[in-house]
């Protein structure tokens, strides 16, 4: 069965190692913060200038001067640091953030990602996404395997305007965990109860299926 949003987030959280600095995009990526294993710690970077983002505030703690990159009110953990936007993106662009997790409209076998613009629709902008995909050491894309019409979002080549080229190495969808290697998607894990055939059918780009494909465990 396809994973729920929370299950995708749970699987994402399994990627983290103790001591990782992580930037989580809006949506499913943000949920991953709820599922970090108890025996490890990660520190969340918010690209508006906060390293050590904490939970949402209580009513009493709400402070207009303390927001995250999604413009939501947040808190800072003990040991957080706060800095300007140039410093924040120096950190990102310079490869100091260990993981970036973000959503996408499309990814392709060359590791390209399209996540910010659909021609014909009003374009709101890329925000920090292009900087994040250009800078993070490891990028994990989280998304549903297909769009709402059933079309694959894992393509031979992205059709939408790109956010970044040759930068995606790992994709976690509602059906599978895949890596991007040498011009192909490589199936690493499948969701519980999902068949390899279904994944094959819903992956438009070249897919390599190893002999043994593990099932995700939570």
């Amino acid at each position, binding site marked *: 069965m396809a994973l729920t949003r929370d299950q995708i987030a749970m699987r994402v959280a399994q990627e983290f190692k103790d001591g990782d600095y992580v930037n989580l995009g809006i949506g499913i990526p943000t949920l991953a913060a709820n599922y970090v294993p108890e025996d490890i710690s990660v520190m969340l970077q*918010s*690209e*508006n*200038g*906060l390293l050590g983002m904490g*939970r*949402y*505030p*209580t*009513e009493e703690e*709400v*402070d*207009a*001067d*303390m*927001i*995250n990159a*999604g*413009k*939501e*009110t*947040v808190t*800072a953990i003990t040991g957080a640091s*706060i*800095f*300007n*936007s*140039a410093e*924040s*993106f*120096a950190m*990102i*662009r310079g490869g100091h953030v260990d993981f970036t997790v973000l959503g996408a409209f499309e990814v392709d076998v060359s590791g*390209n990602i399209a996540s910010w*613009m659909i021609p014909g629709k*009003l*374009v*709101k*902008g*890329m*925000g*920090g*996404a*292009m*900087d994040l995909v*250009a*800078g993070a050491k490891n990028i994990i894309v989280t998304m549903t395997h297909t769009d709402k019409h059933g079309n694959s979002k894992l393509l031979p080549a992205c059709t939408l*305007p*790109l*956010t*970044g*080229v*040759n930068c995606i190495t790992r994709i976690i969808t509602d059906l599978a965990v895949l890596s991007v290697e040498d011009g192909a998607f490589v199936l690493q894990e499948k969701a519980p109860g999902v068949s390899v055939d279904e994944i094959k059918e819903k992956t438009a780009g070249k897919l390599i299926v190893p002999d043994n494909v593990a099932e995700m465990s939570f």
Partner: protein
Amino acid sequence: MAGFNKVVDTYEEALAGLTDSMTVIAGGFGLCGIPEGLIAHIKTMGVKDLTVVSNNCGVDGFGLGLLLEDKQISKMVSSYVGENALFEKQLLNGELEVELTPQGTLAEKMRAGGAGIPAFYTATGYGTPVGEGKEVKEFNGRPYILEHAITGDFAIVKAWKADKLGNCVFRHTAQNFNPMAATAGKITVVEVEEIVEPGTLSPSEIHTPGIYVNRIIKGEFEKRIERRVVTKEAV
């Protein structure tokens, strides 16, 4: 130190010299850390055809959104816009031009403008619409694009505290683009919550040294919250 006293008493003085068709760099991220009173006064002044460089363009009726009401902005340089209906309408009408710039590149362009660096290379945007028409150069086998610095005729900045010499500190994440904006204006105007005596701020904790600041005005701030999210559980 009379020559270093940058405090002005009125918004008229704070924005004296701002005229049609100028470029204004504004600090702030969303509605956080924006120079509310300076923006409101630009509306009152009625200057037109402005190019505004700011990560966002406020919301309907607040922040930079105010300057859309009388079509004072002809071009926005931003990373994320369209949180307001008026913006969308003027964009679709062709009354407003938008130059979308990745957030980190935007911050770095402002810093470069203030730091006398006319251009720098970044991997951000290579191979995307942002990279189109820009010079590409490889370093260590990876392609990068050349991005140019931004400077403004005016920079409008929101700080927490400043002394009369212009030394500023910013509060929490209201820092954001403000320090870079402060360096990149030919005339930099800072609207602050509190003016303190010189020596109150420790020299090593000053975020923006006074050398970048031309005028300081004390403002009153509504500090509207864009997305109020509170924890549902007991902490």
